[in-house]
């Protein structure tokens, strides 16, 4: 009897956790989709793109780089941002420029900078999660369906699920790399609220966040092939004030999302002391194995 009681408790918590029902879209739901702005296709930070058929496939032509507002993005590194190239070195963290950290988190940042690891867990193929995943030098695709926006992110083969069906954010979310996201439309702007982030994700390189971090993103088109993303991070334990940055994506109509299986042939890595390791040998293949 006791075990039946435990089972019953377990089952009821499962049903509570899964209480958001995805309903079948109606014709009216699909019709309503046609009134939303066109986010379709493949987008990447930096310049290039646009124009539809015949557009140059090069995404990083330096001359066009200035269009991308990469330098202002959450994870922009100084040099990389200037070329409109997306930033992010290893780990996907920002450098913390412009963030106003609380004394406790400033101390964490300084401790990290005083003795930085040679590399981060990203070298072992751990994806950066939010917010760093949105600033990778790889494209992403937006899929709009009734009740949901899905962002297919090429880097590390990741997917963000943003529910726009009116559900509420959970009060006590499980920590996740992308948090848990809900969205709604304010006119032509997609507004996304996310909470509950895994401790592996970072505000900036070497700067962790607290479990109170929240991220607000506002996605909108500023011209037919440019999307602006305004990102506001709040974290009352880590930040003395909300941190807002704006970045932009360019649409590449002649691109498709590719796969990025980081574990396929990763020779780089980092050990538990932060030391960078690399194995240039293809050890499964005797023809290229060295002594």
């Amino acid at each position: 009897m006791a075990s039946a009681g435990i089972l019953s408790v377990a089952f009821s918590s499962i049903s509570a956790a899964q209480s958001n029902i995805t309903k079948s879209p109606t014709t009216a739901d699909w019709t309503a989709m046609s009134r939303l702005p066109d986010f379709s296709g493949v987008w990447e930070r930096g310049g290039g793109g646009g124009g539809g058929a015949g557009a140059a496939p090069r995404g990083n032509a330096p001359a066009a780089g200035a269009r991308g507002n990469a330098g202002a993005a959450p994870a922009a590194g100084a040099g990389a941002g200037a070329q409109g190239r997306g930033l992010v070195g290893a780990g996907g963290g920002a450098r913390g420029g412009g963030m106003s950290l609380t004394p406790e988190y400033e101390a964490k940042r300084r401790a990290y900078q005083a003795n930085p690891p040679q590399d981060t867990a990203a070298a072992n193929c751990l994806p950066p999660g939010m917010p760093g995943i949105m600033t990778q030098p790889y494209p992403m695709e937006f899929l709009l369906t009734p009740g949901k926006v899905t962002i297919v992110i090429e880097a590390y083969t990741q997917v963000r699920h943003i529910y726009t069906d009116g559900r509420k954010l959970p009060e006590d979310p499980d920590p996740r790399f992308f948090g848990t996201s809900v969205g709604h439309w304010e006119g032509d702007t997609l507004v996304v609220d996310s909470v509950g982030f895994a401790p592996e994700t970072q505000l900036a390189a070497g700067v962790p966040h607290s479990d109170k971090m929240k991220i607000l993103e506002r996605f909108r088109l500023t011209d037919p092939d440019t999307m602006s993303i305004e990102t506001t991070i709040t974290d009352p334990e880590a930040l003395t004030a909300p941190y807002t940055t704006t970045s932009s994506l360019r649409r590449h109509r002649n691109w498709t999302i590719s796969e990025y299986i980081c574990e396929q042939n990763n020779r780089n890595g980092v050990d538990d002391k932060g030391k960078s390791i690399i194995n240039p040998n293809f050890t499964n293949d005797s023809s290229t194995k060295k002594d």
Partner: protein
Amino acid sequence: MKTNLTRTILAMLVAAILITAVAGPAAAHHSFSAFNTTEEKTIVGTVKKVEWTNPHIWIYIDVPNEKGGADIYSFEGMSPNYLERRDWTRTTLKVGDKITVTFNPMRDGGKGGMFRNGKLDSGKILTMSGGQ
């Protein structure tokens, strides 16, 4: 004045090189501490194998040694995803192609490093930010 101008030009060149160095690693998932990015070496060899794989491509070159044989050098490049959008394909480099590779050497002295650019016999120059 002339000296100042020369200095200014030199400083700009150095700055340009630094920016390039920063921009290169920006597209990788790891740091570049395994490579000495302040040093560039050049070596001539023959393409032995290309691994067109994520998260980075690897290019193996046979380089003739004094013993009459060949040493294998291995070079890390960008990702196939990145390169395919910048004029490379998985058959851009073929086994047997003669190539002059400029690279940042391994810090541990291993044979190989990070591929910066390659020049083929045809005169075609391959870089990590564009195939031509």
